[in-house]
C-alpha cells in the first residue's frame, strides 16, 4: 500500500533509525512506514544491511529455537551447558510428561505403604528402583531414539550420549524418590534402602542392554526385581530386599556389570560401540 501526498524525508528516516525521535514522532513514522511502500523503499536504502541482517537473525533465532522441557530448563539453571541441554531435550524420559507419570506412580506407591504400614513396603520397593532403570532404558536405543542409526556416526559418539543421558535421568528422578522415601515409616536406613538396588540395577541394565538392547534388558531387570520383591512378601520379612547382605549382592552385581561394560566397550570401542 502506498499513501499519497506526504512522505518522510531522508533526515527524518535517518533520525528514526538512529532512535533520536521522541516517542510520538517515532510512533508516527513507524505507522506511516507500515502504510507507505515508497517510504519503506526509501528507508531500505538508508538502513545498514548488517544491522538488518542481525535483527532478522535474532527474530529467526527466537522463533525457530525449540522450547526446552521443564527438567532441562531447570538443568540449565543448575549449570548444564547449552549444547548438552539440546541433547537432553530429545530424551524421552526427561520430558515433563514422562517424569510426571513416574512421580505419580511413586506417589501412589508411597501412599500405599503409608496406608498399609511398615509391614507392607513392597509397593515402594517395587517402584522406586524401577523408575531410574526404566528412565535410563527409555533414554536410548532404536525403539526410543529414532536417530540411533545416525548417532553412532557422529563425533559425539553413542557411548558418551548414553552416559550423559543416564546421569541426567538419575539426577532428575533420585531426589524426588528420596524425598518420598523419607515419608515411609521405619528407621532411616530402611527408607533409604531402595537406593542400593536403584543404583546397582542401572549398570546391570546397561550391561544387559549391550547384549540384548535396552527394551529386552529393562524387561529382564524389571521381572527379576519384581520377583525378588514379591518373593519377600511370602517367605521373608518385608525389609529383606534392602537388608545389608542383599545390598552387598547388589553392589557385587553392579561391579560385575561395570567390568562387563568396560571390557565390551574397550574391545568394540571403535565402530559399533557396545553401549
Amino acid at each position, binding site marked *: 500500500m502506498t499513501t499519497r501526498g506526504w512522505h518522510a524525508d531522508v533526515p527524518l528516516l535517518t533520525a528514526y533509525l538512529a532512535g533520536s525521535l521522541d516517542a510520538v514522532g517515532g510512533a508516527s513514522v513507524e505507522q506511516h512506514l507500515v502504510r507507505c511502500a515508497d517510504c519503506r523503499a526509501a528507508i531500505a536504502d538508508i538502513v545498514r544491511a548488517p544491522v538488518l541482517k542481525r535483527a532478522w537473525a535474532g527474530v529467526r533465532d527466537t522463533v525457530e529455537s525449540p522450547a526446552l522441557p521443564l527438567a532441562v530448563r531447570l538443568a540449565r539453571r543448575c549449570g548444564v551447558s547449552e549444547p548438552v541441554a539440546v541433547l537432553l531435550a530429545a530424551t524421552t524420559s526427561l520430558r515433563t510428561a514422562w517424569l510426571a507419570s513416574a512421580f505419580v506412580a511413586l506417589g501412589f506407591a508411597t501412599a500405599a505403604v503409608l496406608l498399609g504400614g511398615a509391614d507392607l513396603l513392597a509397593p515402594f520397593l517395587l517402584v522406586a528402583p524401577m523408575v531410574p532403570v526404566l528412565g535410563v532404558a527409555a533414554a536410548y536405543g532404536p525403539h526410543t*531414539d529414532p536417530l540411533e542409526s545416525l548417532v553412532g556416526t557422529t563425533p559425539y559418539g553413542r557411548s558418551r550420549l548414553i552416559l550423559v543421558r543416564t546421569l541426567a535421568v538419575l539426577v532428575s528422578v533420585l531426589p524426588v524418590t528420596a524425598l518420598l522415601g523419607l515419608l515411609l515409616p521405619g528407621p532411616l536406613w530402611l527408607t533409604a534402602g531402595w537406593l542400593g538396588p536403584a543404583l546397582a540395577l542401572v549398570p546391570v541394565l546397561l550391561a544387559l542392554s549391550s547384549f540384548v538392547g535396552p527394551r529386552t534388558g529393562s524387561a529382564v531387570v524389571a521381572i527379576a526385581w519384581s520377583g525378588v520383591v514379591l518373593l519377600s512378601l511370602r517367605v521373608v520379612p518385608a525389609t529383606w530386599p534392602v537388608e545389608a547382605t542383599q545390598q552387598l549382592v547388589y553392589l557385587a552385581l553392579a561391579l560385575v556389570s561395570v567390568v562387563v561394560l568396560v571390557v565390551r566397550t574397550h574391545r568394540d570401542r571403535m*565402530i559399533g560401540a557396545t553401549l
Partner: protein
Amino acid sequence: MNAVQLDAISKTYGRTRALDVVDLGFDRGVTGLLGPNGAGKTTLLRIVATSIAADGGRLSLLGRDPQGSHDELTAIRRQLGYLPQELGYPSDMTAFGFVEYVAVLKEWNDRDRRHREVRRVLDLVGLAGSATKKVRRLSGGQRRRVALAQALLGEPRILVLDEPTTGLDPTQRADLRRTLSVIADRCTVLLSTHQTEDVAALCERVVVLAGGTVRFDGPVTELVATAAGRVWLSDEPGSDALVSWRTGTGRHHVVGGTPPPGAVETEPTLEDAYLLMLGAEARTVRAPA
C-alpha cells in the same frame, strides 16, 4: 591418495556374504552405486560412514584408519556427512530442532554459529520456510530433505547418501541434483539409488554392485557404451529379449536378445546398460540380511 579407499573389504551377516572382497577408491566428485536389492550397496555405504565395521580388508578415510585410535575415528567423523537409508524422525521435533540436535552431536557447541549453520543447510535444501514446522507434519519429500540437511552440516569432505532421492518429486530431485553438483567440487559424494536417471544426471562415475561384488566401475558414458548395438525399437516385442516393453509411441523398446524383424537400433540409456550388465540378476530381489 583417495579420500575413500577400500582394499579387499568383506562383510558377512550370518550366512549371507554382503560384500565379497571389494576394492574401490573414491576422490572428489559424485559416484553413484547401482545394484538390485541385497547387492551390498547399503552395507558398503554404512562401512564408509563408520556405522559398521568390515569383517575383512582395509579401509582408509581421508588418509586415516577408522579402526585405529579413537582420535582417528573422531577426526574422520568430523568431516563426514551421512544420510542413512531409513531414518526415524522424532515426532515432536521441528525441522530446525532436528538438524540442531545432529549439529550438537557434530560438535557445533557455539549456539550462534550452530544456529547460523542450521539455517544455512535448511536454506540449501529449500526448507527455510518450514524450519518451525514439526517434522511429522512435513511431507515425505520434505522429511527426506530435512535428513539431507543434517548430512550437509559443516560442509563435510565425505558425503554418504543412501537413496537420497526416495520420496522426492521431480522438482525436488532436480533441486537435489543442483545442490549436490555445487558441493561435489569440494567433497567426495557416494550415493546409492535405484533411479538410473539420477546417476546419469548427477554422477561422473558409476559402480554396479551385485551379490556383494563389483560388476562395473567406470564413467557413466562407458557403462552406457557397453549396451551399444543391443537396444532396438521394433513393432513387435523381442522373443528372447532380456526385457522389452511397449512405449508411448506404440513401438517396443527391446533390450538384449536378437533384434525382431524390422527392428531399428536405438541409442541405449543407462538403464538399458544396467539391465544388460546384470542380466537376469537385475530382476532378482534378494532379501537383505
